[in-house]
Each structure stands twice: as C-alpha cells, then as structure tokens.
C-alpha cells in the first residue's frame, strides 16, 4: 500500500484514460450497442493518436520538423497489408495480424533510420523538405507498383479482421505507443533527446551521442507510424497511395502543434478532437453546404493557432483557458510536490509555446535553420 502511494499517478493518467475508454467501448461493442461506423471512427481516432504521438517525438522532443510522417505510414500500410493478405490463409488471422504489425513497423523503422541520416547533416526547413520529398517518393513508388504487387493506382486490397476486436487492438497499439514514447522520454535517454533539442552544441559538448539519439528517435517514431499504417490497412477495404500525400503529413503535424509541441497529452487530445471535427463537418455539411467544410476547418485552425501562440494574447490566454474554466468549479488544491522526485519530468513533456517563442530571438532555435552568426575568426 505504501508503495502505491509513491506511484506518480499523473504519469499514468493517460494510459488509464485510454485503457478505460477502450474497456468501455469494448463492453459496449460486445453488448452490441455501438455500430460499425462508430467502431470505424474509433479505429480512426486510435490511428490518429498513434500518428500524432509518434510524430510528436520528432517534432516536440527532438525538435526537428518532419513533413514525411505519412510516408512511413504508407510503408506500413502497404507492406503490413500485403503481408497479412499473404499470410492469413497460411497461418491464420491472429498470427497474420501480429506478423504484419511487426513487418509494417520494422520496415518503416528501417526507412526512418535511413531518413534520420540526412537529419544529422540538415536542419530546419532543409530537413523538412527532405522528409516531405521522402514521403512523396514512397507514395510514387507504391502508386506505380504493378497490379500484382501492390495494386498500383487501383490500390491494395487489404486483410479483414473482426471489427468488434479491431478497434480494441488499435487502442492497445495506442497504449504501446504511449508506453514506449513516454518511458523513453521520461528516462535519461529522453533527457538526452530534449537536451539535443534545447541546444545541440551544448549537448555534444556534454558528451551526448547526437547521432545515436537522432537516429533512435526517427526509428522509434517511424516504427509506430508504420504500425499505424498497418492498422489503417486493416481498417479500410483498400489502401490507396493518394491518401499519403504531404497533405496528410501536415494534418498529423497540425495535431501535434495544436496539442502544444512537446505535450503528449495535448497530442492525444488534439488528434481525437480533429478526427471528430473532420467527421462531424463531413457528415453535417452535405450537398451544397459541403464547400463550407474546409472553410470552417481553416477558420478554426487559424483562430486556435493564433489564440494558442500569439505573444500579444498571452495575458488573455492565461485568463481564459480550459484549465481556468475547469478550476472555477473546483476547490483549490495546493500542490503537494515537495522535491524534484515529484516533478522531475515536468518541464520537457510540456514546453509552453511562449517559452519556445523567445528562442527566436536567442542564439539557437530548433526550428530556424540558419540563425545568423558570424564566423569565428
């Protein structure tokens, strides 16, 4: 019991929430309350969370801009889907699922490592365009594949799986992603990674193996993007490469940025909300109103980003935000943190945007590629 008290529940809160959600829906699904379209939506949410959390490793914690996350997902979707289709008649449903998840994830991870290599040399926008280029290359290769291999322009027919269980599996994968990502970030290795983000030169001088950690982050991140891809192929009847354009990478990036870079919980919430918003807009605005979808989405996006980030709105933000709103209805509980044990990982998992912004005027920033600096004479 004493031990239980020492557990930092806040660290496990998001696992508990995700697990509880999964459990509730699994029960609802077994009792036949929710419909197949709801299950599909849940799969979609789980895939989005997996993608957003894995991308937030690269963008939020390593501080590199990647616009090619959909490319890794594409690899997972095609290779995992194909593996499953081939293996299913041979080894059965469950083994095929597990093998294909591994194949999709691992192959994507290998490519992630390859793409991590230029990341050692390139920074900022240069790396962004290289990742974007990578995504487009992958897409182009699958698009022009032969009919027999990956279906070419018609797309790949995907494996089927019991829809009652599939979304549960998808959420289990979300839990796995969360576990790996958070455990990695909240360890000495995570500290090294965030150190690279904060100041690469100092990190090197402190003996951090920058090469190793950059490759590690790209590899792990693309592994889970690959997993998301395999789930995607199970979730849909066909995999079509047009889906995985840079636009989709940007959609994932939007989730990460809206969630607040470096905040895993933020990424989870943003991924969920954006997926729902998409579907709601799409199903409510039909017929002649359909053209309003993008308009509304765009306006929400612009307003939210400005609200979240504009330096001028800092005071406004601190006064009117969700937390303040919730706290109104809650008695004030003083913080119980005594020592660094309690909050030792408070900071890196939650960089506030306005802390990042000041970087723009300082010597280094993870996102501006070539800050001016005179050559040392």
């Amino acid at each position: 019991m004493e031990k239980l008290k020492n557990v930092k529940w806040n660290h496990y809160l998001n696992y508990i929430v995700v697990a509880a959600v999964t459990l509730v829906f699994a029960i609802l699904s077994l009792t036949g309350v929710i419909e197949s379209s709801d299950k599909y939506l849940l799969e979609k949410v789980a895939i989005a969370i997996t993608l957003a959390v894995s991308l937030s490793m690269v963008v939020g914690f390593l501080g590199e801009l990647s616009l090619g996350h959909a490319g890794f997902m594409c690899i997972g979707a095609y290779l995992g889907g194909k593996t499953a289709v081939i293996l299913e008649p041979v080894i059965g449903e469950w083994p095929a699922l597990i093998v294909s998840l591994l194949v999709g994830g691992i192959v994507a991870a290998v490519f992630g490592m390859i793409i991590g290599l230029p990341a050692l040399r390139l920074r900022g926008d240069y790396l962004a365009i290289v990742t974007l280029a990578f995504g487009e290359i992958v897409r182009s290769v699958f698009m022009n594949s032969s009919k027999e291999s990956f279906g070419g322009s018609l797309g790949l027919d995907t494996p089927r799986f019991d829809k009652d269980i599939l979304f549960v599996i998808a959420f289990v994968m979300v839990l796995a992603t969360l576990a790996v990502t958070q455990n990695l970030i909240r360890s000495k290795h995570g500290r090294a990674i965030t150190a690279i983000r904060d100041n690469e030169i100092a990190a090197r001088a402190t003996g951090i193996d920058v090469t190793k950690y950059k490759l590690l982050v790209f590899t792990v991140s693309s592994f889970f993007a690959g997993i998301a891809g395999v789930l995607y192929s199970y979730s849909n009847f066909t995999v079509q490469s047009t889906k995985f354009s840079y636009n989709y990478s940007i959609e994932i990036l939007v989730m990460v940025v809206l969630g607040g870079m470096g905040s895993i919980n933020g990424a989870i919430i943003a991924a969920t909300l954006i997926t729902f918003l998409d579907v709601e807009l799409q199903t409510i605005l039909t017929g002649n109103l359909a053209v309003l979808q993008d308009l509304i989405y765009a306006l929400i996006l612009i307003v939210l980003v400005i609200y979240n980030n504009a330096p001028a709105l800092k005071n406004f933000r601190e006064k009117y935000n969700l937390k303040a709103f919730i706290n109104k209805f809650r008695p004030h509980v003083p913080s119980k943190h005594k020592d660094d044990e309690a909050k030792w990982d408070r900071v890196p998992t939650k960089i506030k945007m306005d802390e990042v912004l000041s970087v723009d005027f300082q010597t280094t920033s993870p996102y501006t590629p070539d800050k001016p600096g005179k050559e040392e004479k």
Partner: protein
Amino acid sequence: MEFIETLINGLSIGSTYAMIALGYTMVYGIAKMLNFAHGDIIMVGGYMIYVGLTISGNPVISFIAAVLSCIILGITIEKIAYRPLRGASPLAVLITAIGVSYLLQSSAQMIFGSAPKMVTVADLGSISFSGLTIPVYVLVTLACSVVIMTALTLFVKYTRTGRAMIAVSEDKGAAQLMGINVNRIIMITFAIGSGLAAFAGLFMLMKSPSLSNTLGAMPGIKAFTSAVIGGVGSIPGAMLGGILMGVVEAISLKIPPIAPYTDAIEFIILIIILLVKPTGILGKKRREKV
C-alpha cells in the same frame, strides 16, 4: 537534336517553376516562413485575371488588377494571420499558413464553382527553326524571370528597404534595435511576394489555360523545392533551382520506364543535392558561433 529538344522542354517547365520560386523565395528568404499559401495566392491571381478578362476583355488591365488585388490579399493575410504570431514558434506560423491555404481554396470554389475555367490570356504562337519549335510564352516567361530576378537582386542590394530586408532576414531582433520597422519590412516583402504570385499566375495561364482552385498547390511545393535546391534566400538560386527542376522533369519524362516516377526523381535529385551541399547550390553556409 533530341537532347536540345528535351532541354527546351525543360526550360518550358522550369521557367514556370523559376517564376513561382522567385516570389516564394522573397517571403521564404526574408520572413523565414514556409508560406504554404503562396501557391494559393497564385491561384487567386489567376482568378482575378479571369474576372478582369470577363469584365474588361483587356489582358493588360486585368493583369494590373490581378497584381493589385494579390498585393492587397498578401498584405491582408500577413496582417491577420501571420503578424499576430511574430515571435511565436515558426511552426505555429506554418500551421496558419496551411489554414490560409485551405481558406483560399474553398473560398475560390464557393465563388467560382468547382469546374475549371478556360482562360485565354493571349495566344502568342510559337517560333520554329531548324526543326525545333519553341512556344513564344516560354521565351517571354524566361525573359521576365531574368528581369525580375535582376530587379529583385538590385533592389535588395542597393535600396534602403532592400538592405533592411536583409537585416530583418538575418536577425529580426537586432534589426529592430537598429531602428528598422520589422513589421513594415515584412509587409513590403509580402506585398512583393504576392505581386510576383500574380505574375506567376499570368504565366501559368499563358501556358495552360485551365484555371481551377487547386492550380497553385503542386506548383507551390515545386517552387519550395526549387528555392531549397537553389539555396534559401538566394534570389538567383531560386531561378536556378526552378530551371534545374524543369530540366530534370523533362529528361525523366523522356525515359519511358521512369517517366511515371518523374515527381519522385525530382525529389531524389533534391535529396542528393542537399546531401552534397546542405545549404543548396547557391546558399551560403552559416556557422553558429560557439
């Protein structure tokens, strides 16, 4: 002969990329932001030319109207969507740029409908010599690109505003301390970039007269690629990058087995160039002071 022909085709494709990249690199190089909405400003320019032609029938008047409305649009976007985020994370600005891009595309569809419009600006014909045919618009586009490139380079180098732009691009904070009105300089940059977008719109329509609300999306990405290949912030680099992209595209399209992979080939070239020269062909290397 075959090769020269391919080269001409490459110039034809590349001249458009170069033209777009010139406008793109202004905003990109000075405001240091990936303006994903740039392609859509080109699209708006195209529609303004269409509107002008429908109302007045005069290509010159409609072109001037397009340039002016693009400049106003550029300034408005900068003021509403980007300026509040000055000093915020560059990623936040990237996301609003995407929002603006969606906004412009869906507004265009709402106003002009979903069907592509056929816009004939001017039929300039083509010239032939010794078996080779070059459409005149290719020559005009190239000539204009060179003129614009030179003008921009001179502007940036020799005018007060231009030099202020360089200062802002190097270090916004320091520029501000030196008494430069950073907001004003960035606004001017956007005005120039958007005006050039209207130019790009005109030349795109001269080449392919079909106008739709997704006109600028892919060219925007190609221009971004060109600007990076040439070296971020380098005006001649943008032009060079654009032409190079065009030539690569033309060569790749001529080789049947790889023709379907043309886009991929272009991106592979990009990656190779960046791996060899991480700051692009004409980009300057900057070293951080340690």
